[in-house]
């Protein structure tokens, strides 16, 4: 599956293309991260899911840093590597020379299914959000409401609802990159 056309359509505002892109890259990254975390001696599936979520959030919030002329996998891979190293450093294990080579990413082309439960990182991050935003987010993620429905239920405009969720995601990303033990 060609990811670049999907992502370019997503950048232009195509929601369906964006979902497909995230589903595909998410599966690939899950395999990649599982592989990398196992090399670092960590085999808990929930930890893989935590890092995956952090990487997906980072991809989402850094879409404007993608150069349309370059391969989207190189961009996503670099972000995943940055977040993985950051995660290992934060969780207090020696990073050493984690062999984050390109071939390892190629291997991950075989998608790895299985949506293991994440640990509680993202839920903890969500707890730091204002209540209104949390309600909005729950309506979308738990009840599968569209942004328009969620906005009506929360008594705000669709645009305001989008902005609120976007800010919520930003706050959660910041929370994740700060949490955990101090670097060192």
């Amino acid at each position, binding site marked *: 599956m060609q990811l670049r056309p999907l992502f370019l359509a*997503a*950048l*232009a*505002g195509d*929601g369906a293309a*964006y*979902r497909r892109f*995230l*589903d595909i890259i*998410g599966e690939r990254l899950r395999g990649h991260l599982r592989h990398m975390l196992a090399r670092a001696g960590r085999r808990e599936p929930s930890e893989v*899911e935590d890092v*995956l*979520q952090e990487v*997906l*959030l*980072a991809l*989402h919030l*850094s*879409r*404007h*840093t*993608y*150069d*349309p002329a*370059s*391969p989207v996998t*190189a*961009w*996503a*891979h*670099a*972000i995943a*590597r*940055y977040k993985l190293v*950051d995660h290992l450093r934060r969780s207090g294990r020696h990073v050493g020379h984690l062999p984050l080579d390109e071939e390892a990413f190629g291997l991950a082309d075989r998608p790895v299914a299985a*949506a293991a*439960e*994440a640990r509680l990182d*993202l*839920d903890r991050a*969500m707890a730091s959000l204002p209540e209104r935003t949390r309600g909005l*987010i729950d309506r*979308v*993620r*738990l009840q*599968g409401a*569209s*942004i328009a429905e*969620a906005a009506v239920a929360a008594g705000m405009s669709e645009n305001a*609802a*989008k*902005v609120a*969720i*976007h800010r*919520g*995601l930003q706050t959660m*990303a910041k929370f994740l*990159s700060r949490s955990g033990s101090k670097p060192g």
Partner: protein
Amino acid sequence: MQTDQLISLMVASQRPVDTARLSRATWLAALCALAVTAGLVLITLGPRHDLGRAWLSMPVLAKMLLGAGVAAIALPLFQRSLRPGQEPARQLPWVLAPILLVVGWAALTLAQTPAEQWTTLIFGHYWRACLVAVPLYAMVPFLVLLVLARRGAAVDGPLTGACAGLASAGLAIVAYSLHCPDDTAPFLATWYMIGIALVTSAGALVFPRFLRW
């Protein structure tokens, strides 16, 4: 939260994204910073007394070209260093081109002059002023680029910082050339280069602290 749910949230709050904004912002920021820095030089130090005549002279042009050249090479690399997956480090040595030109010119000048005049050529009148002024005026673009860098996704903080430092020093040199009365190539090759090195190191050291994301 499950990963699927997270994806739903991201899709729901998604909007069209402008991927060119970062590069536009970089050039705009650099131009504004240059204008402010030049204004500061003119207000605080004043133009060199013969600027009207000298601005088209070889030494002043050389200073401006050195500064503009370094900045013009460093800025695109800075901008690319904010985009994960790009590897601008490989192109970093190009910054040496304008620097080596000036150093070569300085070496030629020294070779054609008797050694007893070298001190005068190198130290000029105001080497201390130059040594302080370039890093000091570089603070303006430095801070502007630091703010901008936080909007990107730097995966190599020291590299982003070094590029920003080079660009800041380059812009400061362009601005300072409106004042600097020392016109010899050896002076340029010594004090301006030290200024560039100082600001570049400062960038590589300071930026990573502010760029975690």
